């Protein structure tokens, strides 16, 4: 991790060149932020926190969002990237299903640059009960989800990757969504409407005055500074970590961490989401995400103490593969580039004192009513794809406390990047290079802010994912990037099949140049490569292992990175 020193070493010239004045980078304004008094402080920089911050800011509140790591490091960045139609929940949880389809349609409008309208299939295999298909379609209809039974032959035609043995198929409006982009777009809009956002700021405690929460005690992890920031309402949007935050405030929430592991394949085998048409079980969804596809998930209840351990086990990989090939047989021979895991924030229902009954829906707790604790709201449960609705519900609760009567507009107002609906790849192929088009795919209309005037700006840093020098500059200057891992989440640098082999040194060199800090960039590079290896390790065989060995040979053998970087006592903020 780059330490504070490197962060503050930006050349003044560069700060001027940031241009887009409303997008202040945090290091410039932290002192002001610390002195400010906010209407609302939102803890948690996942999709829910970002969505809540956007909604609050759009309703005219003075907002601060704090995140202990980088944005979207928790469950937001550790799921399937699936924009559910709701069909998955139709049979077991009609309420969630209805929420999903309604949010699904909204996100297609407001977040078009984060969404790929792939549609999805629910397939019945010979080992499944075809009778379930009827139950499923009926439940979808009740929830308002369009579900068309199609001929297996038609399913094979529209999605050639599907298991050809299938005996039934239903087409639903599933889609693929990029949660990193979605979160950043919400944060950008919040900031455009006056919100302040801080990453790498960990909540160490609450400012409590009798029975009222009046702010948060923060640790700036980049500088080691301890500060207090005051706000009239504090929103706990920390997902599974919300239990800990609630405890700091003196409230008790029982979370049930449900861990899910997933595998990323090197390229797309499918262009539609493929689900199994049966009761939800292990590894029954294959989602095309950007250049890759992802199979998942497993589902295991884990103790709350272990929620920070995201290592994927051998057994999980085995289960995912064994079930995955039933959906798409080609997965058996397709290269796996990474494995990862996330934790679903399931919450015990308040009306069940035993804590055994789990709510899968959205849970918004006003702790004043529940625990007699003023100025504190918890928003949890739900799903990444219902983040907007969760934000709306939480903001409604905040506004009720503050007497704000402004209406919610997040369902109709497009996110930054999605205002322009004319950006079509087919029109662009003549005018833009591959890297520029990839950037438009990622940033939508915001890609206009990426410099592309000269050869250097258009040079590719990440060749797998088509990330240019211009895009890196944009991300570093405008999207809260402190290190290479942040940069990866904003741009896809290092997310391709080489997992950072070629791009990480180029990106580190640019970061070092921007910050005039070579040592910091070297340490960052080493940390980034370690982080990439962590995800490759559970699937390190075949070509992924060859890839990793070549990476090691280049960085350790050839460049001697392990000689120049002191990794003892390295702070692991991932």
């Amino acid at each position, binding site marked *: 991790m780059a330490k504070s020193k490197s962060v503050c070493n930006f050349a003044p010239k560069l700060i001027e060149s940031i241009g887009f004045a409303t997008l202040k980078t945090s290091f410039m304004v932290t002192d002001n932020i610390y002195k400010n008094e906010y209407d609302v402080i939102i803890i948690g920089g996942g999709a829910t926190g970002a969505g809540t911050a956007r909604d609050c800011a759009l309703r005219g509140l003075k907002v601060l969002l704090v995140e202990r790591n980088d944005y979207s490091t928790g469950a937001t960045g550790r799921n399937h990237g699936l924009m559910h139609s709701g069909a998955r929940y139709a049979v077991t949880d009609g309420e969630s299903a209805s929420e999903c389809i309604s949010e699904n349609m909204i996100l297609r409008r407001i977040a078009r640059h984060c969404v790929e309208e792939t549609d999805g299939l629910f397939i019945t295999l010979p080992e499944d009960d075809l009778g379930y298909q009827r139950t499923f379609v009926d439940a979808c209809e009740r929830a308002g989800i369009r579900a068309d039974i199609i001929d297996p032959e038609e399913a094979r035609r529209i999605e050639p990757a599907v298991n050809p043995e299938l005996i039934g198929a239903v087409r639903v409006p599933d889609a693929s969504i990029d949660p990193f982009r979605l979160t950043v777009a919400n944060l950008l809009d919040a900031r455009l409407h006056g919100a302040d956002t801080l990453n790498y700021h960990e909540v160490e405690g609450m400012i409590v005055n009798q029975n009222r929460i009046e702010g948060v005690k923060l640790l700036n992890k980049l500088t080691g500074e301890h500060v207090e920031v005051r706000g009239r309402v504090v929103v706990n949007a920390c997902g599974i970590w919300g239990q800990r935050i609630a405890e700091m405030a003196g409230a008790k929430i029982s979370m049930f961490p449900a861990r899910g592991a997933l595998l990323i394949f090197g390229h797309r085998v499918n262009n539609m989401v493929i689900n199994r048409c049966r009761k939800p079980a292990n590894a029954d969804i294959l989602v095309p995400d950007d250049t890759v596809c992802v199979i998942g998930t497993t589902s295991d209840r884990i103790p709350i103490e272990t929620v920070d351990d995201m290592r994927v086990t051998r057994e999980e990989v*085995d289960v995912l593969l064994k079930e995955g090939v039933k959906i798409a047989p080609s997965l058996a*021979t*397709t290269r796996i580039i990474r494995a990862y895991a996330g934790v679903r924030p399931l919450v015990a229902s308040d009306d069940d004192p035993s804590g055994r009954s789990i709510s899968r829906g959205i849970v918004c707790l006003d702790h004043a009513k529940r625990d007699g604790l003023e100025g504190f709201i918890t928003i949890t449960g739900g799903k990444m794809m219902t983040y907007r609705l969760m934000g709306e519900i939480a903001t409604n609760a905040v506004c009720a406390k503050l007497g704000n009567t402004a209406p919610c507009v997040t369902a109709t107002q497009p996110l930054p990047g999605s205002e322009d609906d004319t950006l079509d790849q087919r029109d662009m192929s003549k005018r833009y290079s591959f890297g520029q088009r990839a950037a438009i795919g990622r940033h939508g209309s915001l890609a206009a802010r990426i410099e592309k005037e000269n050869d250097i700006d258009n040079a590719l840093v990440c060749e797998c994912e088509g990330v240019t020098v211009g895009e890196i500059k944009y991300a570093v200057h405008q999207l809260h990037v402190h290190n290479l891992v942040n940069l990866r989440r904003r741009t896809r640098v290092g997310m391709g099949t080489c997992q950072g082999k070629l791009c990480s040194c180029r990106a580190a060199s640019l970061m070092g140049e921007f910050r005039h800090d070579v040592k910091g960039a070297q340490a960052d590079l080493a940390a980034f490569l370690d982080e990439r290896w962590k995800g490759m390790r559970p699937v390190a065989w075949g070509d992924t292992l060859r890839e990793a060995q070549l990476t090691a040979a280049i960085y350790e053998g050839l460049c001697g990175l392990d000689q120049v970087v002191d990794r003892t006592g390295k702070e692991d903020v991932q």
Partner: protein
Amino acid sequence: MAERMQICNLSENNFEQCTKCSICTTVCPVAAVTTDYPGPKQAGPDGERYRLKDPAYYDKMLKLCLNCKRCEVACPSGVHIADIIQHARMRAGEGKRASLRDTMLANTDLLGTVANLVAPVANVTLGLKPTKMVMHSVMAIDKHRTFPAYSRMKFETWFKRHAAEHQAAYANQVSYFHGCYVNYNFPKLGQDLVKLLNAVGYGVNLLDKEQCCGVALIANGLYKQAKRQARVNAASLRQAVNMDHRTVLTTSSSCTFNLRDEYPSMLGVDTSDVRDSIMLATRFIYRLVDDEKIKLVFKQDYKRRIAYHTACHMQRMGWQLFSIEMMRMIPGLDLQVLDQECCGISGTYGFKRENYERSQAIGATLFKNIADAKVEAVATDCETCKWQIEMSTGLPVENPISVLADALDVDATRRANGL
């Protein structure tokens, strides 16, 4: 690990085996001279991932690829990089019509048939400055290029009139896929081969039906026509190899590579059952000598200094050794083997106005090496390399078969082989 799974990562075009080492880009002749072309790694395996997501990610700069296959030779992971690029071009070109210029350049046999009829006129006209200017400005065929001269008599005609009847007398029989260049432009090469093979006791036969191999059709996007011609050729090759039990010899490296490897990989026309029986004549002759099945006797007074240029497709097949070693059998020949460099012409690529400068830039190193070699002629197995080197260095370029035929003492050889 789940049983029998993930033993290999092999998708259709095996691009997953790419470890992004970038060696291919370092040997790419196009990437070396222009930043417009993203290089084989980007154009091939990297781009393919995006094209799987959305075909609209096709990069129009892929047309700069020469399909020289040097990337495939260099790849330590066995990725068919150039095939991936060609397939992407093929998919992007589906439903689009090739331009008149490309159609004309690609139809080497049609053009040849017409030009043969009026060869003297055609040769003069095509060489005239006003003709060149018109072709340059209207058809975008570069003014620096001269079309190879057309012969008055097709090789096929010559063969039928002067050679066919003697062939049955020989104990051994081979078939010959002469290709367009020999047929329409340069029958002498075919005549040299017949002379050579007859001298060592081999009779030569033409195929039942030979059409242009289609290498230029593929390069110019006329895939349907290429496929039709490939099927006709595949049937003739099968007849020769499987029914008549003859080896099919060739004198053009690109035709050979096309028949053996591009037919199945690019056009989906399977020639795997006859692949091993299609080979360059230099390889065939070298092996016969090496196995002591034939003897070659050379002229006593023969003395020449020649440089050998390895054509890209020759390198892809790994057969340059046969041509080189075959020529090294000639006692009076001082053979200078040049470093393997692309000459830049790549069939019809260099004829196009928009490619001319790039084409010459690619070949610059080769031309300099040839000049430094102080030779009287250059030998190579590819006719388009021949045109490019002749135009760019002023030196005559010959096929190794012609070099051998020129050095051969035919009567002595016949006697040595018991004829």
